[in-house]
């Protein structure tokens, strides 16, 4: 169980309260008007922002004061998910082991991850030589070898076209199922939420609400969400 226990996140005058739980192995979308604090919520969970109050618990373990790298969390950001001067293989290898040389066993795991995301022969390329979709696949291969129990997506596919984005989301869903990973993803597109997230957290007016069933929430949106979604 992932628990936001009476959390308060402050950023200047901005405040966000979060007090809810997420079941392991679920896929949860986080939606809400822009500026409502969706990314702030993920940043706090990943450890890039400190809590002013409350605690973060994963399977009864307190994460609140852990370094971002020590949390059971892998995260993909809006941009800058790859180091442009490193090869595909090196980028993925950093997820395996950022500070030491890889053992032979680890090298083959990196290669397997590349095969799994469909980039078997691309290991020696640099990110600049890849398409947007391929770059996303490299980042996902790295998530695979990181073997963290939670995966946070802060709209990493926002720059991709609709078809490619759907493809990536499906890949995320497949990988999460194969590796027993709990997924939290920020999205501004309700279709993304419907596509892979059974539950959705609505963030609005300074509060991150209890997760609800995605279809129900989107079919009968409360007023704030209705304003955001428009006539749809």
């Amino acid at each position, binding site marked *: 169980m992932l628990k936001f226990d009476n959390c308060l996140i402050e950023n200047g005058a901005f405040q966000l309260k979060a007090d809810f739980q997420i079941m392991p192995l679920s896929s949860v979308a986080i939606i809400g008007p822009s500026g409502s604090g969706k990314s702030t919520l993920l940043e706090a969970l990943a450890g890039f922002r400190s809590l002013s109050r409350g605690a973060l618990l994963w399977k009864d373990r307190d994460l609140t004061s852990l370094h971002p*790298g020590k949390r059971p969390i892998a995260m993909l*950001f809006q941009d800058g998910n790859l180091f442009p001067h490193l090869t595909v293989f090196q980028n993925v290898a950093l997820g395996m082991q950022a500070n030491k040389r890889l053992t032979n066993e680890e090298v083959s795991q990196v290669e397997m991850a590349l095969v799994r995301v469909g980039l078997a022969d691309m290991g020696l390329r640099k990110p600049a030589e890849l398409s947007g979709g391929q770059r996303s696949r490299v980042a996902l291969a790295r998530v695979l070898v990181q073997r963290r129990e939670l995966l946070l997506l802060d709209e990493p596919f926002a720059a991709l076209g609709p078809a490619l984005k759907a493809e990536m989301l499906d890949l995320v869903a497949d990988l999460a199922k194969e590796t027993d990973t709990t997924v939290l993803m920020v999205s501004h597109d309700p279709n993304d939420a419907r596509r892979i997230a059974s539950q959705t957290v609505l963030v609005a007016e300074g509060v991150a609400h209890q997760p609800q069933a995605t279809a129900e929430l989107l079919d009968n949106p409360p007023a704030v969400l209705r304003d955001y979604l428009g006539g749809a």
Partner: protein
Amino acid sequence: MAWRTKPLSPYPGIGAAVLVAAFILGTLVAVGWQADGSKGFAASDWVALRFTLKQATFSALISVFLAIPVARALARRRFWGRRILIALLGAPFILPVIVAIFGLLQVFGRSGWISDILGVFGLPPIRIYGLHGVVLAHVFFNLPLATRLILQGWQEIPAERFRLAAQLGLSGRVMFRQIEWPMLQRVAPGVLAVIFAICLTSFAVALTLGGGPRATTVELAIYQAFTYDFDLGRAALLSAIQLGLTVTAAVIALKLSNQAGFGAGMDKPVQRWDSVSPIRDFFWICLATGFLLLPLSSVVFSGLVGLFELPSLVFRAAGVSILVAGASTCILLVLALPMAAAIGAGTKGLVEIAGILGLAASPLVLGTGLFILVRPYVNPSDLALLVTALVNAVMALPFALRILTPAARDVIVSHGRLAQSLNMSGRVFFVRIMLARMRPQIGFAAGLAAALSMGDLGVISLFADAQTATLPLQIYRLMGAYKMDAAAGAALLLLCLSMGAFWLLDRGGRRHAEV
């Protein structure tokens, strides 16, 4: 909770800053300790102080006044070679002073080209030694700098203003008063202050073109107190005066210049709709180009002859210079990179202050302090090369930080979070990510440091004995002995080494660098 935003520890940078501060402040304390005020100011000290202020004032005023029409011409004309010319304006920064002086002597000297032409008309040759010579050389070095800084002011005027002025049908004169004059009022004082501060500490120019009781700068007086009288107390007292001067000037310059950049985005000419006759602009551009290129090409021409009969002394000195420049560049990078990383990660204060301390101390003041510090323990001339490399590195530090810090900040902003979420250690982040991403800036900073050190004729002259010489010092000695052919060849060699070192390092940094 410092780790929440920082992928690497600021402590190595703070450590480097403490070292730099201790080095500079330590030598200054030594100077203050030794300063012998008992005899008070000698009359000659007052003369030196007055001459220092006078030449710096003239140099700054003339550089800026000439730079204004040149910058204006460059701002509004498009012509073939404009970009090369603007790039060339950056060259004097890394040009060895002794090489430029050699070139200036070839053109403006007693038996130089201009005197030859004057002779044809029965006119007497130019006298270059003394105030004129010092100011001439300073204008040679600083006119390009002033032009770049003022040109930047012109480029920063929004294009809409000129468009609006054209639409309102403003005449050239009104336009100048309404748009360009306010810009100059804002930019010029800073440029004046920067050049004034630079000219206060210039040593090699005064050493070669000044001299004599009436054309001695404080910096030169320190050298003379050392070498002629070996009066350390007086050298230290003069150093204290010089320190007061440079600190005041540096503070004023920093305040007024408001971080005037070193020339980004100057390729685009300002589009204007008023039709000014191009003749005047053409004149100014030719004048500035000629003033820059004639001395340089004279070094190349006269050097080519001498290059093939250089005495072996020169080659030994060149080897020494390469060694010193290499060491100085390494020292610089070891200090500057952690400092840039620390500032980039948000540590301000001490690290930033240590970074600009170098602007306040002049090389000869640092040299005097170091001399006093090491003399009880070792023969200072044994340390001549090490001290030269160190002082050069400290002098290049403010420039290097200015180049490296923005890049370091960028790397931390764009890759810091990913590195942290991968649990990457600060050391690995520094080596694998930061150094790799900053290669172009590191190459540029290293190139500047190497070229500056290669051409430096300053502290080495305090420490070196007759057997030791860097290439610039060797050229100075050859000129002093009137071995002009050898000096010409050696000057060309030094020019090639300095520019070559800069080019190699700068290129090396940019090669295969992914954007």
